[in-house]
Every structure is written in structure tokens, then in C-alpha cells.
């Protein structure tokens, strides 16, 4: 299994981004009910691994940090979920 995606919150982040063009940091924190510090740390790991792309912009002088899933992240997610499903089949 994918080590990075064994973490439930990181798997949740990738799931949130899967059907999205982009999602703002604040929206991810709200959806996943995560603290900003905790979420930021997990996002940093996903960005470092190339699973997630971070885009920082200013809209009307307000900072907006957006995240989108990369192809690498999408592929890792699909492979990881397949392995989860395999594990469930083996144990059922």
C-alpha cells in the first residue's frame, strides 16, 4: 500500500481533490474537520511527494491558497484504493 495514503486525513485530502478542479485550504479544513496546523502539515507531505499541487494567489488583495490533484496523486490514489479493496476481499 501507499505509505502516504495510509494516513486517513491524507487519504481524505486526496479524495476531496479527486472530483475537484481545485479546492481552497479553508474549504479542505472545513470539509475534513481538521485544524489548520494539522492539515497544513499533511498537505506539505503530499505536495513534497508530487501528489498535490499548491497554488498561492491573491484575489482582491486577499490570499487564496488552492490545491489540485496531480496525475501522480491520482494514480497513487487509484492503486491504493484497489489494494484496500483487495485487503477487504481477502479478509471477508
Amino acid at each position: 500500500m501507499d505509505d502516504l495514503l495510509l494516513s486517513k486525513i491524507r487519504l481524505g485530502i486526496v479524495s476531496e481533490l479527486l472530483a475537484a478542479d481545485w479546492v481552497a485550504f479553508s474549504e479542505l479544513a472545513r470539509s475534513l474537520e481538521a485544524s489548520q496546523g494539522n492539515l497544513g502539515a499533511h498537505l506539505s507531505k503530499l505536495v513534497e511527494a508530487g501528489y498535490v499541487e499548491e497554488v498561492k494567489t491573491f484575489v482582491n488583495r486577499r490570499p487564496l491558497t488552492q490545491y489540485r490533484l496531480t496525475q501522480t496523486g491520482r494514480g497513487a490514489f487509484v492503486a491504493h484504493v484497489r489494494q484496500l479493496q483487495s485487503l477487504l476481499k481477502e479478509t471477508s
Partner: protein
Amino acid sequence: MEEQLTAAQARDHIEMVARILDESQQRLYAGGSFFVVWGLFGTFVTLLGHFVSRGALPASALWAGAAALVAAVAFSVLRRRALRVTSERRSLVQREFFNVLWITIGLAFVANLAAFNIFRGIASAAIWNFADAIVLFFIALHGNRRALVAGIAVVVSLVVANFTAPDATAYALAGGVFAGFCGFGVAELLSRD
């Protein structure tokens, strides 16, 4: 070093993924105000063209149509910018929706502007009904029943316009755009949480 999950944890993770994906599939915001504005534009231009062709208004009145177009485009640009500030998520479906909206409206505009010898008179107005129906049915494909009803209303207006008396054709088309596009837009605005 690779950690391992228990079957219970794996099930918990799968269920979380399924729940998140299920919720995200429903996030298509069609933007009611866009439809109200473009519906009003379509209705106005169709009736304007009708009155000019009947001689009830001078040809110079067509400039009002150009002014309405500029106003509709300006509104759309400003509104989209405002949405970008307030919106914190854009789904893939949302991106596709805006692509379909702008491509369809753009193609209808190009057909009006560059193929006016083919789409003459009332045909140039009918193109907008056709384009509007495509946009509404695209939204309907993503589970929006109001868009389905509105799209059917626009298509029905096309058929009615085809068989009605020549003097009433423009009214049928304008009524279809007004009921379909404006009606859908108002319904979306009223239904938003």
C-alpha cells in the same frame, strides 16, 4: 517502513472515500444570475430584431442589441470574478459546465456574426434557443430536473415557432428563452441554500 492496515481500518477508509466522492458529485452550481442575464439578453435581442424587421423600430435600434451584449458580457466577467473570491471549491463538473456554457454561447455568437447569410432573420434568433437548450440539457445530465424542464421548454418553443404564424415566430422564440433561461435562473437563485 510500510505500515499495515487492519480490515476494519481499510473498510473505514473505503467508506470515507465513498462518502467524500458521493458528496462532491453533487456540487454543480449553475449560477442563476448568469441565466437570468443571458435569458433577458436573448429575449430582448429576439424581440428587437423582430420589431426592426417589421419596421416598428428603425434599423439604428439594433445598436441597443450590441449594447445589451456588451452589458451581458461585462456582467458575466464581473460576476465570475466575484464568484472566484467567494467560492472555495471548483469541481471538475463545474469547470466542464463553464466550458460548455462559454463555447456554446460563443459559437452561437460567431454564427450570428460570421454566418449571417446562412442564418438570416429569425434563424439568427433560433440559434440562441438551440444553444440555450444545449447548455440546459448539459446541466440536466448532472441531475438537475429544473434544467431538464427548462431545456424542454426551450425546445418546445423552437417547435412552436416553426409551426406558428410568421408574425408570432419571434414571440414564441423569445418566450422560450425567457421561460427556459430566465425561469431556470430564477429557480436556481431561489433554491440556493
